[in-house]
């Protein structure tokens, strides 16, 4: 399951969805809005995505993960819109029989979301709103 959403990401619900009786391991990564950046206090972050392209790329990442690792379920969700400190911006959860696969697939998932998904963020601090200088998208 992969998607971008404007709704709150409910980690309990995702855990229930990724769970499977045949699996002995679940590894999850949760990205949250931090209360600071390298210089100052952060109040919140606005996330904007090229949704249709993100979903294409998430589909590709999902395929790659199932091709490369023997896992049972893969969930990747990215939120858009304005998020306050402590809210979940992204979650990747993987279930598998054994833990090695789940760790590797989860890590691959989040690394590739970061590198390949057209998503942009604007931080809100007491000094205003700034688009974060990002990195060139990976093909």
């Amino acid at each position, binding site marked *: 399951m992969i998607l971008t959403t404007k709704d709150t990401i409910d980690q309990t619900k995702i855990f229930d969805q990724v769970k499977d009786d045949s699996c002995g391991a679940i590894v999850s990564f949760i*990205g949250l809005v931090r209360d600071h950046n390298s210089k100052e206090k952060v109040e919140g972050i606005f996330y904007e995505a*090229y949704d249709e*392209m993100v979903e294409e*790329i998430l589909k590709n990442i999902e395929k790659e993960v199932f091709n490369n690792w023997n896992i049972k379920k893969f969930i990747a969700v990215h939120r858009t819109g304005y998020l306050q400190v402590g809210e979940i911006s992204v979650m990747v959860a993987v279930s598998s029989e054994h833990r090695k696969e789940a760790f590797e697939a989860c890590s691959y998932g989040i690394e590739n979301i970061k590198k390949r998904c057209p*998503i*942009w*963020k604007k931080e809100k601090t007491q000094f205003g709103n700034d688009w974060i*200088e990002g*990195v060139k998208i990976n093909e």
Partner: protein
Amino acid sequence: MNLSECTTLKIRLFGILREKMESDNLLISIHDTSISLKELRKYLKELYPSLGLNEINFVFAVNKVICNEDMNVKPLDEIAIIPPISGG
């Protein structure tokens, strides 16, 4: 310029670029039925200096795929400028 030879490309804008133009899209006219992304890059820099495309390391996505700039785009293609990303 013979207007009958012009076609219109719609180019999607996101993030800082969308904000700078206060628009989700740029509509630009080209003097042919297609144009290479390399030419489009040059053209956009000339036509919209306020986008600041010289200062950012952007790429083009065509139909949701990052493309080599030798490629030609046509009016029905979904073209987007992808500025540096910062998701996650």
